[in-house]
Structure formats: structure tokens, C-alpha cells
């Protein structure tokens, strides 16, 4: 990729080049260290602390108690819930997104660019507003129930909102564009003569797809999985608005601990665990494919 082959500076100007490089790099790096890395370090420190009777943070007697508390069986369902929602969202996004991406790439013709912009349009639109739109559709006397009854599928309104169904639907809707884009990039890059060759060698349409198309578009699939899983597992808005009070996820618990309850050290520990889950998952999945995602 051309990004990794920067123009070699001529040696006479190397000192000036070093200076300009510093001017380019230092402000942004300093900003991110000060306002991203240092705060992360601070929540780690706070997560080792405890609180006094007045809910102030106490940083003497540092320990991993908060982490042990997070591993308590009582918290397991919360973690599993978050994982379940994120996994379901990721799988659904792939199942819905792959055929759409494939269709845009193979049959989009000269409208490809417009079709991609249309996929991205909801992404540019407020996530909060898009979630709110589903509230209008899914509530007891909402559009979905009206339509179901009008068609005669049900006589009584179904409970659609504040269920696992509504949370997974809302997340899939919200993060689907993140899946379609990388899938499109890898499918569009695929040389279609390879599929033609497989067919010439008597592969069935299904065989050619399973043994040629699917393996060659794997980088896009992995990128799509990462890009939907990460926002889904940390999502707070969808479980809160479409999941109602009884739906608990890690993000919801963290938010409550920080803004309503006062146990910041424990909230910080949960936040740090969430961070490790996403970062660890990303690094493992991304290692061989980093360029694909950065290039997408």
C-alpha cells in the first residue's frame, strides 16, 4: 500500500525534514497522550482504589478487589448479555450485509458510488435519532403492531419493545453500514475471472462461492465483524432506549455507577475490562489484516 512507502527525503534537507516531521507529528501525538492515554491510565489507577463513606475516591491500599468483584457470578449474566447482543448483531450484520455488498459490487454498474452513499447516509444521521425511530415503530400501539393487525397476522398487539428482539434489531440497524463498507471493498477487489475459472473447472455456483469468493473476501468479513462487534458491545444507547429498564449490559451498569450511583472505582474496573475485551479481540482478529481496515 502506498501509505507505507513514504517519499524518501533527500539527504541535504534531512535536518529540515526532521524538524517539519516533528511539527507535523508532535501536536497530535501530545494531544492524544495527554487526553487519551493519561485518562486511561487514571481509570486504571482509580479501578485499583476504593471509596470512603462520602463516596470519595481513596487511592491508598490499592488492590484488585474491584476486578474480583466484576468476576463475581452475580455479574456474569450482565457480561454474557453484552456478549450475546454483540454476537447476534455481528452475525446478523454479516448475513444482511454480505449479499447487499455483493450486489452493489457485481450489479451496481455506474450507480455503485450512489448506492454506497445511500448505505452511508443513515450512518451520517444521528444514531440517537435512528434508535428513536425504532421506538415509534416497535411500541405497543406503534407502526409495526398496526401493520401486523392490518394484515391480520395478530389480533392483539405484540410486545416488541423492551425485548431482546428490539435491542438486537436496533443494534443491527445501527451498525449495518459498518459491515457493508468493508465487505464491499473486499468483494469489489476480487478478480471475477477467478470465479469464472472455478466455474470453467466445473465448480457449481455454490462451490465457487464457498471455495473461491468466501475465502478471498475473508479480510472484509473479519473487518466487518470487528467494526460491528466493537460498537455493539460497548453500546449504551440501544439497550437503554430499546431494551428498557430490565435489560442490563456492561455499558448500562457502568453508566449507572458513574452518573447515578457513586461507586467510581468499581465502574472504572468494569470500563477497563470492557476496554480489554474490545482491544484484545481487535488485536487478535486484526493482526494479519491491519492494512485492509486502515485502507477501507
Amino acid at each position, binding site marked *: 500500500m502506498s501509505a507505507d512507502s513514504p517519499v524518501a527525503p533527500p539527504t541535504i534537507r534531512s535536518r529540515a525534514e526532521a524538524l517539519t516531521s516533528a511539527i507535523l507529528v508532535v501536536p497530535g501525538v501530545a494531544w492524544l497522550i495527554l487526553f487519551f492515554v493519561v485518562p486511561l491510565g487514571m481509570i486504571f489507577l482509580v479501578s485499583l482504589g476504593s471509596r470512603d463513606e462520602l463516596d470519595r475516591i481513596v487511592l491508598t491500599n490499592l488492590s484488585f478487589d474491584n476486578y474480583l468483584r466484576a468476576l463475581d457470578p452475580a455479574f456474569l449474566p450482565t457480561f454474557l448479555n453484552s456478549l450475546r447482543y454483540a454476537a447476534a448483531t455481528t452475525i446478523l450484520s454479516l448475513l444482511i450485509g454480505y449479499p447487499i455488498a455483493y450486489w452493489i459490487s457485481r450489479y451496481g454498474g455506474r450507480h455503485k458510488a450512489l448506492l454506497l452513499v445511500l448505505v452511508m*447516509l443513515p450512518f451520517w444521521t444521528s444514531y440517537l435519532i435512528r434508535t428513536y425511530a425504532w421506538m415509534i415503530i416497535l411500541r405497543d400501539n406503534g407502526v409495526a403492531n398496526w401493520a401486523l393487525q392490518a394484515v391480520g397476522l395478530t389480533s392483539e398487539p405484540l410486545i416488541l419493545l423492551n425485548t431482546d428482539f428490539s435491542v438486537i434489531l436496533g443494534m443491527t440497524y445501527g451498525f449495518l453500514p459498518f459491515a457493508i463498507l468493508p465487505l464491499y471493498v473486499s468483494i469489489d477487489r476480487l478478480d471475477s475471472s477467478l470465479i469464472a475459472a472455478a466455474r470453467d473447472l466445473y465448480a457449481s455456483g455454490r462451490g465457487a462461492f464457498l471455495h473461491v469468493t468466501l475465502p478471498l473476501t475473508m479480510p472484509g468479513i473479519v473487518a466487518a465483524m*470487528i467494526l460491528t462487534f466493537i460498537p455493539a458491545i460497548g453500546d449504551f444507547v440501544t439497550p437503554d432506549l430499546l431494551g428498557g429498564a430490565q435489560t442490563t449490559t456492561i455499558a448500562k451498569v457502568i453508566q449507572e455507577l458513574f452518573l447515578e450511583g457513586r461507586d467510581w472505582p468499581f465502574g472504572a474496573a468494569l470500563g477497563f475490562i470492557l476496554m480489554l475485551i474490545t482491544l484484545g479481540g481487535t488485536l487478535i482478529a486484526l493482526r494479519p489484516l491491519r492494512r485492509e481496515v486502515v485502507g477501507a
Partner: protein
Amino acid sequence: MTGRNRWLTAYAIAGYIFLFLPIAVLILFSFNDSKRNFQWKGWTFDWYPMVFANEALIDALFVTLRVAAVAVAVSTVLGTLLGLALARRRFRGRTGTETLLLVPMVTPEIVMGLSLLVFFYQLFDSRGSFNQLALAHITFCVSYVAIVVRARAAGMDGSLEEAARDLGASAFGAFRYVTFPLILPAVISGALLAFALSFDDYVVSTFNAGVGSSTLPLYIYGKVKFGITPEINAISTIIVATTGVVILLAWRIGARRDARARATATDR
């Protein structure tokens, strides 16, 4: 067209309907003549004037725009410099810098939000303020601007800048008159993306906004939690329509520019 292509096309069309139907419903119900906004009762435009008469909402809109203006200005400068460096320079700590850009993008928003709250609370005893909010927004925008600018600058012909230097241009002159105009479209896309991210942000803002610096997403969230009102549909429709028009315009301008660039390339 074979049977299978037809199925795929039908699937894709259903996918687009899935993407746009909720937005269509949202817009439709902003014209619904019913305060409780449950069922369709007939057309009205009453909710739109109410949006502009709602002082709390307009205040929140202005806070949002002020935060976004600061976030866009600072993150565009920082991100453009970083993107240029990564695309066109060899320097020590390159890999580290790349990682430093990518990690904020894969960090859950809620973690970024709470870490800045802890940072400001521990160091400045602040639970949220306008400045804290603007600073948080800058932090999550920088990476996106840098990635967009980097992609464009990496595709740029480096010999152009070299030629300018050989003809006696200063380093700054070469940047000002050669490099910058070439990467300007990417800088603008980066700035637009930063604006969209900042304008839309709820999660980071909920941890870092203070009293009096409540943004529009925070205002809308507060209302939505307690029920659905046509007024929220109206403000949502205004936001959706505005972003839709801006994105489609930006895309049209970009497409035309590309077409021109291709035409000049074939003329040579």
C-alpha cells in the same frame, strides 16, 4: 438476468428498505396531528414552529454547534498534520503513532467518556463544563480526520512537492501552494466527518457536559426517555434532512471533481 440475480436484487432492495423505512416513519410522524403521536391522525405542520419557539431546545442546539465548531477546528488541524506525516514522512515512532491513532477508534465510547470525566475530576475537580466537553470531542475526532487525510495524501504524487522545492519554494511555500490544495478535499471530508461525530455524540457528552452545557443529543435523550413527542420528530426531521442534503451535495461535488480529474488525465 438469471433467477438467482433476481433474488439477490430483491434481497438488496429489501436491505435498502430496511435502512430507510425507519427514517421515513420518523419523518412522516413529524407531521402527525396528534399530541400523543401514537396513531396517524392527519397532517399538520404545527410541530415545526414549536421547535423554534422552544428555548431549551434552541439553547441546546447552540451549545452543540459551539462545541462542534471548536472540535472541528482543532481536530482538523491536529488530524491533518498527523495524516500528512503518516502518509509522506519517515520518522521514528511511526508504528507507535499509528497505534495511538487506531486505539481511540476501537475504544468503546463509554470508556473514553468516563476516562475523561475521571481525568478532569481528579485533576481539576470538574464534573463537566463547556471546555471539558469541547476537549473530549476534539479527542475522539482527531483519529478520524487523520485517517481520511492520510488516505488522500498517500495517493498524492510526492514529486510535485519536490519540484516546488527544487524551484526554490520554501518548505512552507511548497506546502501552502502545492500540497495543501491537493489534500484540501480530504481535509474538508475529515472536517465534515468530525462535525457529524461531534454533533451526534451522546455517550461521551453525557459524562463531560456540565450544567448549562447540555447539547442537543442530551436534550433529545432526556425527552425520548419519557415518551415520544411529535416535537422530537420535528427536530429529528430537520437534523436528518440537513445532514442528508449536505452529504448528497458533498458526494455530487466530489463525483464531479473526480470526473474532471479523469478528463484532464486522459487529455494529457
